[in-house]
């Protein structure tokens, strides 16, 4: 009887863990960024993005994630800022409309922490990035939270008169929250 109860508990635990999160809910997800302007932190966000996700907490190594951000949907907090960063010296959204992240491996760091390695491509340039993220199950959906820092110069974001870092810093912190429902 005890054995049966244990087996049942394990089976339940397994079935809970075997949930795979795939349905990304855009309205409960966000992509934001923080950079420094003359030493002062300024934040912004992207309004439109899409993601394909396969994540099973029981099998993190098999997880896959692709993330596409529509760069023209940038919100810098000022309309003239939005127009400026869409232009050639910054994102050049006419030639390079999308920023894309494709995961290559997902590693569990213990607890609810994970490390997602992958390639980030912006403006025709690609860089390997390692993104730490946490995962929290909330009912039928799971929430991924994380942030990582990129250097805008690595992607030629802000060329010409913006290339120096005295006004707009090189480091840009990317913060994301992805909410995905299970199948």
């Amino acid at each position, binding site marked *: 009887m005890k054995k049966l109860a244990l087996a049942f508990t394990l089976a339940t635990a397994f079935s809970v863990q075997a949930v795979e999160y795939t349905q990304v809910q855009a309205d409960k997800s966000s992509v934001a960024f923080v950079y420094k302007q*003359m030493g*002062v932190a300024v934040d912004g966000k992207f309004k439109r993005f899409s993601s394909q996700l396969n994540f099973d907490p029981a099998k993190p190594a098999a997880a896959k994630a692709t993330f596409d951000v529509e760069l023209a949907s940038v919100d810098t*907090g000022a309309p003239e800022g939005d127009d400026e960063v869409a232009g050639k010296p910054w994102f050049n959204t006419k030639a390079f409309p999308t920023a894309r992240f494709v995961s290559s491996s997902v590693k569990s760091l213990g607890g609810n922490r994970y490390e997602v390695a992958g390639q980030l491509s912006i403006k025709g340039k690609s860089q390997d990035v390692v993104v730490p993220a946490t995962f929290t199950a909330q009912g039928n959906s799971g929430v991924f939270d994380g942030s990582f820092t990129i250097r805008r110069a690595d992607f030629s974001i802000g060329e010409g008169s913006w290339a120096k870092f005295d006004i707009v810093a090189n480091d840009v912190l990317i913060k994301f929250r992805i909410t995905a429902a299970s199948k």
Partner: protein
Amino acid sequence: MATHYTKTAKGLHWLMAVLLIGLIALGFYMHDLPLSPEKLKLYSWHKWAGVTAFLLVLVRLAWRITHIPPALPVNMPKLMQLAAHAGHLALYGLMLAIPLSGWLMSSAKGFQTVWFGVLPIPDLLDKNKELGDLLQTVHMSLNLLFIITIVGHIGAALKHHFIDKDDILTRMLPKHAKEN
């Protein structure tokens, strides 16, 4: 009864005259510039100078409260005396309200003010686009009112000097410096 302003009062008056006229001119100039690193730099400088002006006006108010200014000429009509006091009240009110509106506008627009890039001034308002736009209109309108008041202030001083031929203008000039 004192017949002249103190050296400190004169110093603050002329320092702020230069600073505030510079701030107004910079404000109009930078607003119309296309976005560039220079524009962002000028905005920061404008905000730093604005915070400085606000602190200076507090010092000036403290000085004014503790040092009774010279009285208005006795032969000045009561209505004119009232207008003079109202004008000065408006100048002080605007010198306080304009930097406050600029600071609140910056907060609402999501750009915190950090004095000389060192001392962060807390954001009293959260980022809010509509409120930011409204406060921009307020900041601009108060400045237009300020320009009108300054023109009135200068015009009145010149009228006192050239038409009334009293000492209203000269008692604020450096050469009439009284000890203190």
